C-alpha cells in the first residue's frame, strides 16, 4: 500500500487520538520551555498537532510517537517561531568549550550545592538559569531531565549525532552548575 494510503480516515483519527493526544501535556511543556510564552506555546502545539495529523501516513504505528511528535514540534519552533523571537540561531560552541573544559580535573568546588538549605534557596535561581540557557542547550536539558528521552531519541529529535547530544548536555549542566555556584556564593553559602 502506498504511503499516502496507509490509513483510512477512521484509522487516522484513531491513531491520532491514541498515539499523540496523550502527549499533549508534555508537548505543551516542551513548547513553553522553548518559547517561554504561554500564547506562543499554545500556537506551537496547535501547529504541531495539525502537522502530525496531516503527515500521519508517514508515522508507523507502534514506533515512538512521542519522539515523532517532539521532532515536529522542534522543527516548527526552529522554522517558524524562533524567527519571530529574534533569538540567536546558534551558540558559539567553541567559546563555550574553552570556558568549560571537561577534562579540568583540578577544578575547585568552592560551593557545596548538596545542603538542603542551599537547594531551597536557589529554587527560583534554577528556573532563571535554565531559562537563560542558549536555546540549543536548554532543549537537551528539557528533553533529558524533564522528558526522560534517551540520547538516541534526542539525537533523532534534534537531527544531531549522539556525541553532540552528550557534549551539549555536559556543557548545559556545566553552565548551570557554575551559575548556581556563583549565586550560592553571592548569597553567602561559600564553603
Amino acid at each position, binding site marked *: 500500500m502506498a504511503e499516502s494510503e496507509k490509513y483510512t480516515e477512521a484509522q487516522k483519527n484513531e491513531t*491520532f487520538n491514541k498515539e499523540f*493526544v496523550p502527549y*499533549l*501535556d508534555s508537548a*505543551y*511543556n516542551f513548547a*513553553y*520551555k522553548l518559547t517561554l510564552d*504561554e500564547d506562543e506555546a*499554545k500556537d506551537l*502545539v*496547535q501547529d504541531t*498537532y*495539525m502537522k502530525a*495529523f496531516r503527515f500521519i501516513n508517514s508515522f508507523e504505528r507502534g514506533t515512538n510517537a512521542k519522539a515523532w511528535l517532539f521532532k515536529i514540534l522542534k522543527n516548527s519552533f526552529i522554522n517558524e517561531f524562533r524567527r519571530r523571537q529574534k533569538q540567536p540561531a546558534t551558540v558559539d560552541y567553541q567559546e563555550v568549550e574553552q570556558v568549560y573544559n*571537561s*577534562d579540568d*580535573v583540578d577544578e575547585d*568546588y568552592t560551593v*557545596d*550545592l*548538596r545542603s538542603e538549605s542551599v*537547594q531551597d534557596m*536557589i*529554587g527560583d535561581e*534554577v*528556573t532563571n538559569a*535554565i531559562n537563560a540557557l542558549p536555546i540549543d542547550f536548554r532543549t537537551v*536539558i*528539557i528533553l*533529558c*531531565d*524533564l522528558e526522560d528521552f*534517551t*540520547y538516541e531519541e534526542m539525537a533523532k529529535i534534534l537531527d544531531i549525532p549522539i556525541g553532540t547530544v*552528550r557534549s551539549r*548536555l*555536559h556543557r548545559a*549542566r556545566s553552565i*548551570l*552548575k557554575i551559575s*548556581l555556584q556563583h549565586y550560592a556564593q553571592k548569597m553567602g553559602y561559600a564553603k
Partner: protein
Amino acid sequence: MDVNTDLTDRQLFKRVLPSYLDGEATEHEKAFVARQINQCKFCQSIYESEKCVQDIIRKSLAKQRIAPPADLLFAIQQRLHQPYPLPV
C-alpha cells in the same frame, strides 16, 4: 598509586560520569564508575556534586511543569475538522 594513572582514571571518570547519571553507561562503564567512587575520594566528590546538580535541575523542571490551557485539545480538534484555507 601512580599519579599519571590516577590522573587518567579521573579524566576518564569525568567523561563517563554523565552517561552513568543519565542511565546510558555500558556495564563496563558502570563497573568502572562504581569502582572509582569507592576507591577515589576525588571521584566520589565529583560524583556527589554532579548528581546533586542533576537532581536540582530535575526537581526544578518537574516543579515548573504547567498544565496546558483547558481549551487546547478542543482548539486542535476544531482546527482538524476545518478545511485548510485556500490560498487567496
